[in-house]
C-alpha cells in the first residue's frame, strides 16, 4: 500500500511547512510584535512548555507517537483539546460532506444521463450551461447569497450553535442542509459533465449497437447496458472531487456560519495555533487519502478486469 507511505510523507510535509519554513515558531504564534514584547526568559519557557525547544526530529517523532497514542494536543489559546474539537465539531462537517456527496449524485447523474440521452438537444444545452455555471460559482458566495436571501425574505437564520443529529434531528438538518446543497451542486455539475461524456463514449461502442439492434427500448439500452460501463470513471472523479468538498467546506461553513471543523481550522490558522492547525490539516489529508483508497478499492470491486487481471 502506497497510501501509508503517502500519509507518512504528508505528515512530514505538514511538519516541514509549519516548523521549518517560518523560522521561529514563536513569531508564528505570537506575531512579530508579540514576540518582541516578551523577555528572552519567557520565550525559552514557552518554547519548552510547547515542546518546541527540542531538536526537530525529536519533535516530529513525538508528534507521531502522540497521534498513535491518540493524544492530539491542545489549543494554545483555548482550553479544549484538539480531540474534543474533532469529536464535537467533526460530526457536523462529516454530515455535510456525506450529504453533499449524496446531493451531487442524486442531481448530477440523472442530469448527465438526460444530457447523453439526447445530445445537443435543448435540455442537454441547458444542462451543460448550468453545469459550466455551477463549476464557476464559488460555493461560499452562493452560500452567502442563500443566507442573505433567507434573512431578507423570510427573516430566517439557521441555528449557529452545534446541534447534533442525535440531539435534535430537525435543527441539525437546518444547519447542515444549506452547505450540503451548495457543495453538492458544484460537485453535481462535475458529475453531470463527466457522466455525460462517459455515456456518450460508451454509447458509441459495439455492444450498445447490438443491444439496439435486438430491439431494446432506448432507455433500457442506456440504463442496463451503457450506464454500468460508464459509471467507473464517474466514481473515480467523485473521489477526486472530495478534495473540493473538503477544501470548499471550510469556506462554505464560514459563509453559512456553521460551527464545523472547517471553522475550527480557520480560527486556528488566524490565531496561528500551530498544534491545532497541524493536527487538523493532517486529519483532512488522512480523510482525503482514505477516501481515494476506498475509491480505488471499489473500482477494483466493480471492474472485473482489475479484480481478476
Amino acid at each position, binding site marked *: 500500500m502506497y497510501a501509508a507511505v503517502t500519509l507518512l*510523507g*504528508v505528515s512530514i510535509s505538514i511538519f516541514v511547512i509549519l516548523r521549518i519554513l517560518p523560522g521561529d515558531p514563536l513569531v508564528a504564534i505570537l506575531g512579530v510584535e508579540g514576540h518582541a514584547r516578551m523577555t528572552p526568559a519567557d520565550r525559552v519557557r514557552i518554547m519548552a512548555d510547547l515542546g518546541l525547544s527540542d531538536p526537530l526530529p525529536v519533535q516530529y517523532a513525538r508528534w507521531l507517537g502522540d497521534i498513535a497514542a491518540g493524544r492530539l494536543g491542545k489549543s494554545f489559546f483555548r482550553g479544549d483539546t484538539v480531540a474534543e474539537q474533532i469529536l464535537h465539531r467533526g460530526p457536523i462537517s462529516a454530515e455535510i460532506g456525506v450529504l453533499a456527496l449524496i446531493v451531487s449524485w442524486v442531481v448530477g447523474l440523472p442530469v448527465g444521463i438526460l444530457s447523453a440521452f439526447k445530445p445537443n438537444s435543448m435540455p442537454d444545452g441547458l444542462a451543460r450551461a448550468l453545469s459550466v455555471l455551477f463549476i*464557476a460559482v464559488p460555493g461560499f458566495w452562493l452560500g452567502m447569497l442563500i443566507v*442573505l436571501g433567507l434573512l431578507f425574505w423570510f427573516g430566517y437564520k439557521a441555528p449557529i450553535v452545534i446541534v447534533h443529529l442525535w440531539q435534535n434531528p430537525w435543527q441539525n438538518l437546518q444547519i447542515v442542509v444549506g452547505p450540503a446543497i451548495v457543495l453538492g451542486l458544484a460537485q453535481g455539475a462535475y458529475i453531470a459533465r463527466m457522466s455525460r461524456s462517459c455515456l456518450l463514449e460508451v454509447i458509441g461502442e459495439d455492444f450498445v449497437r447490438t443491444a439496439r439492434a435486438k430491439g431494446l427500448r432506448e432507455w433500457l439500452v442506456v440504463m442496463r447496458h451503457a450506464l454500468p460501463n460508464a459509471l467507473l470513471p464517474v466514481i*473515480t472523479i467523485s473521489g477526486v472531487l472530495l*478534495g473540493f468538498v*473538503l477544501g470548499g467546506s471550510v469556506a462554505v461553513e464560514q459563509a453559512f456560519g456553521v460551527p464545523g471543523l472547517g471553522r475550527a*481550522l480557520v480560527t486556528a490558522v488566524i490565531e496561528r495555533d500551530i498544534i491545532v*492547525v497541524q493536527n487538523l490539516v493532517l486529519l483532512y489529508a488522512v480523510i482525503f487519502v482514505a477516501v481515494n483508497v476506498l475509491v480505488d478499492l471499489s473500482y477494483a470491486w466493480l471492474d472485473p478486469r482489475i479484480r481478476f487481471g
Partner: protein
Amino acid sequence: MEARAVDPAVAGVADATPSRSILGELGRFSRRNTLAAISGAVGLFIIAVALAAPALAPYDPLKADFRRMNKPPDALHVLGTDQVGRDTLSRVIYGARTSLFVAFSAVILGTTVGSLWGVACGYLRGRFDLVSQRIMEILQSFPDLILAMAISMAIGTGLQAVIFAIAITRIPFGGRVIRSVALSVREMPYVEAGRASGGSALRIMAFHVLPQCVAPYLVLATTHLGVAIVIEAALGFLGVGVPPPTPTWGNMLADSITALVPPWWLAFFPGLAITITVLAFNLLGDGIRDTLDPRLSPAFLRMMAGGRRS
C-alpha cells in the same frame, strides 16, 4: 508563424494547416469556437479593467467617507458604499487588480515549475521520476484550499505568501500532465536522433522535448487560472489571504458578512465579479484545449486521475 513539428499524435496540434497571420488564426479560432472567443474577449476586458484601474475607478478605493456609509447603489455610487463609506465599484475594480495579479503570478509560477519538473521526470525516468511522483502524490493528498491556508500561514500572510501558497498547490497538476507528454515524446525518433548525435540530456530536454509541451502548458495554465482565482478569493474570504485594506474580491466578501444584516450590494457584486471572471477563463481554457490539445480532453484527464493506484 514558425514551422512546428507536425505530428498530430504527439504535438496534439489538430490543424497543421499553415496560417498567414495571427489575426487569421484568431479569426478561425473564434469562428470554430464562438463561446471561447467571447470568453476570451471578456477575459481581456477584465484584464484591461484591472490594468487601467486608476483611470477607471470613480473614487479612491481606500478612502473612507463617513457621511456616506452603507449606502445602497445610487447615482453617486453606482454599486453602493461599504461600512466606512468606501465606493464598492472602485473597490471591485481595484480588487480585479489584486485578484488577477495573484492568480496570474501563482499559476505561471506553479505551472512552470511543475512543467519543468514534469519534463525532467518524463525524460529522465528512473529513480528521480519515482521519487518525484511520490512527492507530487503527497502534494495532491491535501485539499487545495487547506494546503494553501497552511502554507500562507507558515510564511506569513501577504501578497507574496498568497502567491507562493497557491503556486505550490498548482505544481503537481503541471508535473503530472507534462510528464506524460514528455514520456511519449522521449520515444520519438527525432529525440532518439538527438541522443544518438551526442546531445546531452539537458540539451535534448530543452530543445526537443520542451517545445512539444508548450500547447499542454498553455491549456493547463488557462484552466488553472479560474481555480487560482477561486482559491485566492476563498483565502481572502476566510481572512487569511491578502490582508486588508488592500481590496480583493475575497476580503470584500469577508467584510460584508461582519454586519448583522449584511447589505446585499456588498455581498453580491464582488462575488459576481469572481463568477464572471472564473467563467470566462474556464470557457476560454476549454476552447483552447479543444483547439490545441485534444489529449487534455476530459477523457484524458479522467485517465490521469484513474491512474492513481494505491
